[in-house]
């Protein structure tokens, strides 16, 4: 009897898989330049699930699609601070942990921190994490300034320093959620402060940068650094490391370095999650589970130069990735890194307004 049941059950499973086998697809929406495409091919080969892969380049764009609803994507990759309020809005489906056995490989150091955004890590898994810091062309800076404080926010926040550096070009992230915490931390406040007075003070500090900043932009600095058009950028670790590699490949005499300022900087997390209205729940879980395999995660990190959230992946990492303090910072630097949470709507409006003041003077 048991046998018959088992056979019947497997027959049902087989017919359903056969029906699905023809057209099993997962729609993934990830950041641009953020995966080794070989991983997607391997995934299809192993599971028979086709991947339709689409990219975005800002959290705002992703958020708008999610809040509109019916995005049609099965896996999306928001940054944790944005994801927190998206969870509140009911955007995501709770993960079915029984379908994610590889979650056992996730790194507790990262899990402890992502829990601030996603209690119990119920809705998301960590894909990559990184820091925000300086991308710099040290040779060019040396030409315009003696003994520049290269490893300190003083370089950016002291107008007399920035004025000198501005001669060879400075870009700053057009992302208030990155720059206000940096300024607050520099002023000695909690980086995650939501106190209006402290935010105003941070805004005033940031505004002093404007005359010396060539552009506030969140992606153009990769090319600008790599081509030697600018000598300083505040940007995301992996992007700056990509600029470093592009410059090295082009062999154009430009050397790009990544520096985490000694006063501390932002540690951020890009999380993979499944929208509540995802059309292919099973395939989405299969994709997340596959991504969390240590050797797959290592492959991704080896390709994009970001640290990932799977500790066991370390043994598959290239030495140049594993031992690069710009990717995997040392313990002392990690302790100095801060995390932030999303602003409530009223504070968000204040921060946005202050940021417009910073970038336009209006």
């Amino acid at each position: 009897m048991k046998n018959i049941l088992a056979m019947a059950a497997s027959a049902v499973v087989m017919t359903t898989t056969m029906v699905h086998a023809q057209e099993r697809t997962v729609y993934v929406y990830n950041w641009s330049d953020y995966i080794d495409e070989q991983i997607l091919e391997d995934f299809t080969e192993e599971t028979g699930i086709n991947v339709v892969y689409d990219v975005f380049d800002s959290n705002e764009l992703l958020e708008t699609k999610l809040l509109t609803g019916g995005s049609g994507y099965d896996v999306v990759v928001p940054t944790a601070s944005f994801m927190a309020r998206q969870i509140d809005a009911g955007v995501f489906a709770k993960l079915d942990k029984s379908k994610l056995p590889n979650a056992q490989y996730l790194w507790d150091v990262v899990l402890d921190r992502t829990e601030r955004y996603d209690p119990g890590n119920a809705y998301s898994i960590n894909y990559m994490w990184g820091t925000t810091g300086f991308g710099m062309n040290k040779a060019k800076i040396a030409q315009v300034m003696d003994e520049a404080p290269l490893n300190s926010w003083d370089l950016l926040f002291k107008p007399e320093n920035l004025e000198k550096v501005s001669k060879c070009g400075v870009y700053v992230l057009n992302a208030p959620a990155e720059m206000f915490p940096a300024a607050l931390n520099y002023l000695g406040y909690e980086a995650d402060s939501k106190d209006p007075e402290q935010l105003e003070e941070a805004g005033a500090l940031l505004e002093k940068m404007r005359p010396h900043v060539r552009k506030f932009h969140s992606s153009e600095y990769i090319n600008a650094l790599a081509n030697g058009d600018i000598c300083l950028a505040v940007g995301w670790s992996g992007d700056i490391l990509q600029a470093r590699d592009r410059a090295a490949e082009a062999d154009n005499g430009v050397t790009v370095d990544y520096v985490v300022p000694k006063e501390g900087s932002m540690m951020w997390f890009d999380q993979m999650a499944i929208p509540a209205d995802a059309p292919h729940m099973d395939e989405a879980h299969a994709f997340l589970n596959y991504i969390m395999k240590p050797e797959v995660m290592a492959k991704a990190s080896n390709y994009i130069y970001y640290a990932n959230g799977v500790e066991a992946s370390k043994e598959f990492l290239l030495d140049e990735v594993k031992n690069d303090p710009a990717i995997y910072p040392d313990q002392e630097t990690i302790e100095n890194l801060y995390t932030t949470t999303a602003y409530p709507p009223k504070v968000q409006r204040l921060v946005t307004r202050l940021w417009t003041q910073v970038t336009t003077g209006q």
Partner: protein
Amino acid sequence: MDREVHSQAYTKSRLGRWALIAVPYAWLLLFFLAPFVIVFKISLSEVVVSIPPYQPVIDWANGLAGVLDTARQWSFDNYIWLTQDAIYFKAYLSSLQIALIATAITLVVGYPIAYGMARAPKAWQPTLLMLIILPFWTSFLIRVYAWIGILKNEGLLNQVLMSLGLISDPLIILNTNAAVYIGIVYSYLPFMVLPLYSSLEKMDGSLIEAAEDLGCPPMKAFWQVTIPLSVPGIIAGCFLVFIPAVGEFVIPDILGGSETLMIGKTLWVEFFRNRDWPVASAVAVVLLLILVIPIVLFQRQQEKQREAA
């Protein structure tokens, strides 16, 4: 009998005319009025953390009662908000200013091109027309990006000027309002040239000959004969450039600098960064009114003049 046939034909042609007029009206209703009503409705709501990120949402299940119920919660608070922060007013003003200056430059650049095309031998004209349309074959975005390579400090323009010895330090053009003007003039030039060409091309050349026969110098003939006759083309071209330029987002975002304040960017910030769809919608509604009201008034004025003439 004869009369009956006549009136039947009359009814038929009237029906046909109505059907013909109905097409553009249906088009406007579907693609202009309906989206506008939706945007206007959102501008009356308030932000919440949900999908979609505003409330109230009309409950269609309850029919008319649901709509009325929603309507009771609407308010004009977002429009009042726009008046409380000078940034919106400044952004509208600066957008209008940038669009106006850019339109004027486009006209000055476009007119000689159109004039040259209209005066060119008839056999060349299709080719010239083709050349004007040719840029549309590549993506607008890529063409705007290409200007980064031309205008940047180490870019093509500066290299040429420096190698010619005309300048010693590179000109800083990229990421300034000057780059925005260049971008708008370049991108919208065909929209200026095409209507100008079509009005100049129709002009009767013998009018100029007549003016010259009567002793009018060529320059004066141009100002007194050619320009007035091409006014419809000038108006059409200016509208085609000015209206999209006011709301332009891509060009100021890619070529403009930090200080470039345009309503398209303000709208982006409200919509994407503040996640405030209601205020973003209010910004859009006000922008539409700023554009539509003067245009309608202008057209009324034109019609009156025509009737008077």
